[in-house]
C-alpha cells in the first residue's frame, strides 16, 4: 500500500469519541462546497466468528490508504465499523469513481463473510444522503454512550497465534487417572424418517472418542491461549494418542465409558488418530482386539493431515484397509469442500463441519455444494457439529442422514429418558452431558449407566 505504514492494530472508539467526531465531520461536510462521500464498512455485520482481528486489520489498512488518496478521514467506531469521509472522486482522475470502486472491492472482499455484499458497505454521497449518515452516526453515538462500559469490557481482542507463547513441553503422560477428562464421548446417529410420519427415528451408529480442544489447551498450557494455535493443539493431541489406545485396549471389552460391551451389533467405535499413530504396533493391537470382540472401528484422520502428509496418509489408509477398518476423513469445512475434491482421498466417510453460513450460501455455492455431495455420495457424509436444530434440518434438507453434535446428543437423551425407569429428576441436559463424559465423576448421578452406554436405537421426538 502506498504511503506510510498502516495504522497499528485496530481498536475502535470505546467512549463515543469517534462517533462524535464523525457527527461533527458530517455536519461540516454538509456545509462545505466540495462534494464529499461517506463510505461505511459494517464489520459489525460480519457473521460469527468474524470479524476476526485480520478482518479489522486489513479493512483498516485498505481504508487508511483510501483516506490518504482521497483526502479523507477515517473513523474507527466502537462497534467495529469503519467510516470514511472523503472526496467524491480522485482529482487527478476525475472520471474514475473511486469510492464506488472501493465499495465494490470491499463488498467483494468482505461480502462472503456477511449476510450479503450489499449489507457490508454503505456509500452515502454528501450532502444528498447526509441524513442517512447523520442518523447512522447518531445511532452509533447513542449506542456507544449507552453500552460504552460493556464495549470496553469486550474490547480485549482475541489473540491469534502470533501472540501465543509457546508453553513448556509437558511431561510424558504415564498415568491415566485424569486423562479421560480430556476425552469427549460423542455419538454419531442416523436420522431416518419413521414410517411415513413426520417424526424421526434415531439410530446410533458409532461412538466417537475425541479430545476436547479446550480441555487440551487448559491442561497443557493453562497460561497460554493455545486454542488459537491449531498446530500446537495438534502437537498436544498427538502426544495423547498412544495413552488413549492403551486405555482403549484395557477397557474396550468391558462396560463403562470406554467399553463397548452391551452395545448393539454394528455399533462402532470411532477414533481420531494421526497417521503416525496408525502405523504403530499399539494401534495394531487395538484393531485386532476390536475384531476379536466384534466391535467395528472407524479411524478418523483430518483432511489437513491428509493434505500435509499425503504419503503417510496413503500408507495409513493401506494399513486400515488391510485391517478392514473404516476410514473417516474429518475436519472438512464447507469451504474446503467447495475448493477441493476430498473424495479423491478414497475414504469411507466424510465429516463435514456444520456452519451457520451453510444456510445462507449463494446460489452458485449451493449448486457447487450439491455437486460435491453428489460426487461423494450423501450416504457417506456425516454432518459434524450439528449442535442445533437448524443444522440437523439443513442436513436433512440436503439428503444427509448422519449427524454428530449436541443436538443429536439431546435427541438421543430424549429417547433414553423415555425408556429409562430412573429418569425422574433428570433433565435432558444432564442426560446428554453424562453421556458425553468419559469420567466416573461426570457420570456419577446417572442411575441407569447400562442404558447410558448402550448405544441402543431410540425413537426420539422430531
Amino acid at each position, binding site marked *: *500500500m*502506498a*504511503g*506510510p*505504514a*498502516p495504522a497499528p*492494530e485496530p481498536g475502535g472508539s470505546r467512549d463515543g469519541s469517534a462517533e462524535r467526531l464523525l457527527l461533527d465531520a458530517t455536519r461540516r461536510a454538509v456545509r462545505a462546497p466540495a462534494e464529499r462521500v461517506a463510505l461505511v464498512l459494517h464489520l459489525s455485520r460480519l457473521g460469527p466468528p*468474524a470479524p*476476526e482481528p*485480520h*478482518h479489522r*486489520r*486489513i479493512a483498516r*489498512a485498505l481504508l487508511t490508504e483510501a483516506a490518504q488518496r482521497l483526502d479523507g478521514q477515517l473513523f474507527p467506531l466502537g462497534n467495529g465499523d469503519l467510516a470514511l469521509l472523503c472526496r467524491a472522486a480522485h482529482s487527478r482522475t476525475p472520471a474514475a469513481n473511486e469510492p464506488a470502486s472501493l465499495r465494490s*472491492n470491499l463488498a*467483494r*472482499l468482505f461480502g*462472503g*463473510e456477511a449476510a450479503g455484499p450489499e449489507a457490508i458497505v454503505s456509500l452515502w454521497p454528501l450532502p444528498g444522503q447526509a441524513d442517512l449518515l447523520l442518523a447512522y452516526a447518531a445511532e452509533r453515538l447513542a449506542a456507544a454512550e449507552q453500552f460504552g462500559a460493556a464495549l470496553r469490557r469486550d474490547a480485549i481482542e482475541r489473540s*491469534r*497465534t*502470533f501472540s501465543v507463547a*509457546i*508453553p*513448556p*513441553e509437558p511431561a510424558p503422560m504415564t498415568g491415566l487417572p485424569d486423562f479421560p477428562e480430556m476425552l469427549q464421548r460423542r455419538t454419531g446417529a442416523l436420522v431416518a424418517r419413521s414410517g411415513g410420519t413426520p417424526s424421526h427415528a434415531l439410530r446410533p451408529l458409532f461412538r466417537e472418542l475425541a479430545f476436547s480442544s479446550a480441555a487440551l489447551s487448559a491442561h497443557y498450557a493453562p497460561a497460554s491461549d493455545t486454542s488459537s*494455535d*491449531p*498446530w*500446537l493443539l*495438534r*502437537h498436544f493431541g*498427538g502426544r495423547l494418542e498412544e495413552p488413549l489406545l492403551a486405555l482403549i485396549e484395557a477397557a474396550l471389552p468391558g462396560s463403562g465409558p470406554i467399553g463397548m460391551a452391551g452395545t448393539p451389533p454394528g455399533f462402532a467405535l470411532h477414533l481420531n488418530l494421526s497417521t503416525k499413530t496408525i502405523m504403530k504396533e499399539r494401534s495394531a493391537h487395538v484393531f485386532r482386539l476390536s475384531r476379536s470382540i466384534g466391535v467395528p472401528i472407524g479411524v478418523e484422520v483430518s*483432511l*489437513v*493431515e491428509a*493434505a*500435509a*502428509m*499425503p*504419503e503417510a496418509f*496413503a500408507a495409513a489408509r493401506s494399513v486400515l484397509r488391510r485391517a478392514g477398518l473404516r476410514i473417516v476423513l474429518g475436519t472438512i*469445512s464447507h*469451504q*474446503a469442500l*467447495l*475448493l*477441493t*475434491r*476430498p473424495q*479423491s*482421498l478414497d475414504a469411507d466417510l466424510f465429516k463435514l463441519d456444520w456452519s451457520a453460513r451453510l444456510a445462507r450460501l449463494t446460489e452458485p455455492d449451493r449448486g457447487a455444494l450439491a455437486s460435491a455431495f453428489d460426487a461423494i455420495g450423501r450416504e457417506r457424509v456425516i454432518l459434524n457439529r450439528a449442535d442445533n436444530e437448524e443444522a440437523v434440518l439443513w442436513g436433512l434438507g440436503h439428503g444427509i442422514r448422519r449427524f454428530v453434535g449436541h443436538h443429536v446428543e439431546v435427541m438421543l437423551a430424549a429417547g433414553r429418558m423415555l425408556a429409562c425407569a430412573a429418569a425422574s429428576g433428570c433433565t435432558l441436559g444432564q442426560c446428554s452431558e453424562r453421556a458425553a463424559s468419559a469420567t466416573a465423576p461426570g457420570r456419577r448421578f446417572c442411575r441407569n449407566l447400562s442404558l447410558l452406554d448402550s448405544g441402543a436405537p431410540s425413537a426420539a421426538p422430531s
Partner: protein
Amino acid sequence: MTALPELPSVELDTMALSSLARDCRLAGVERQVLLVRFSLLPPEYYRPHHGRLAESALEPLAGADRARVYRLPGHDLALAWRGDAGRQENRVLATLAVLFAEPAPPLPRFAELVRRFTVPRDAERLAACLAAPEPIEPQAPERPPLDLAALGAIERALASADMSRFSRRRSICRRDGSGQFRLAWEKRFLSVSEIGESLAPEHDLAGDPWLFRRLTRTLDRRLLALLSAPRELSSAPPFAINLNVESILSPAFLTFDVALPAGLRGEIVLELLPADILNDAPAFLFARDFVRGRGYRLALGGVAPALLPMLPLPALGLDFLELRYSSELASMPAAALDAASEERERILLAGADSPAALLWGEAQGFVLFQGRAALPVS
C-alpha cells in the same frame, strides 16, 4: 543477471544432450544416439580402461555427420550423429559386444548396456536413461524431533538473528519459443536446513510436522521483515515467496506490502501449501481475495502427486501449481494433471535437475521450470 554456477563437463554434456532432443523437436530434424551405460555395471566391474576402450570402440562413428561424444554421469558415454551411418554403427556395436562379453560377474543384458535412440521420436526414452541416479544421501544420524523447548529457543534466537545469512534464491525460468530459458522470477526463501544446523543442530526440525508448521510462521515473519528492509527490493527482479495464510493476514505482510516498490506490484507470486489452505479455508479465501486485489499472483506449492486429483487449481482460484519432479510424478496419468489444471502453462516443474525431468516436463507442455537443467540464459 543471475550468476551461473560453473558446471562440470559431465553436467554440461548431460544438459547438452538433453537440449539436443529438445532442439531436434523444435527444428523438426532427427539425430541418432548411441548410449553406452557403464553406470549399469556392478561397481567392482568398472575400470577406467573400460571407458577408454569404449571411447575407442565409438571411433568408427566419430566421422559421421555432426557426430559428437557426450560424457555423462556414471561414466556413461553417448554419441550422436546425423543421418545414416549403418556400416560404422555395426562396427561399433560389434566392438562393444566384445567389450561386454567378459565373464563373471554377471552383467546386464547387452541391449540394456548399449541403447539406440532416434530423437526426437525417442526423446522420452532417452531422457529416462539419462535421469540422474538419485544421489545417495549420507545417512544422517537420527535426531530427536523438534520439541516445544527447542522451538521456543529457535523462535527467541530468530527474533534477533541476522536473517540475511539464511536468505536464498532460486531461479524460476520460462522456456521461450526458441527453447531458451529466461528468468521468470526468483524464489526467495530462508534455508530451513541451515537454520536448523545453526540454531538447533541436535533436533530434526521437521520431525514434528505440527511444530514445524508453527515454526514456518515465525520464519514467514522474519522473511517478510527482511524483504521490507529499506533498499532490499529496490533493484529486485520479480520474485516468489512461500507464506502461510495467516502470515498474509499479519501486520508483517502489510508492512511488506507498503515497502514493495511500485515496479514490482503485480510481479510477486505468493506460494501457499495445501494443508495451510485447508487448515482455515475461510481465512484462505479472504487472504486470496485480499492479495489478488493488491496485484499479487498466487501459487499452490508442495503438492504431492497423490494430491493432484484433490486440488483443482481453478476451484482454488490460484494462478500457478508447483510440482516437484519425481518418478512418481512422471508416472502419473495425464488425467491426474488435468484434474489439477488443464492449463499446462500454469504448472511449474520444480526439481528439474536432470534432462529426464526437463524432457518429461516439456512433453507435458510445461513452460515454467526450476532446477539445474533449466538455468536461465544470461
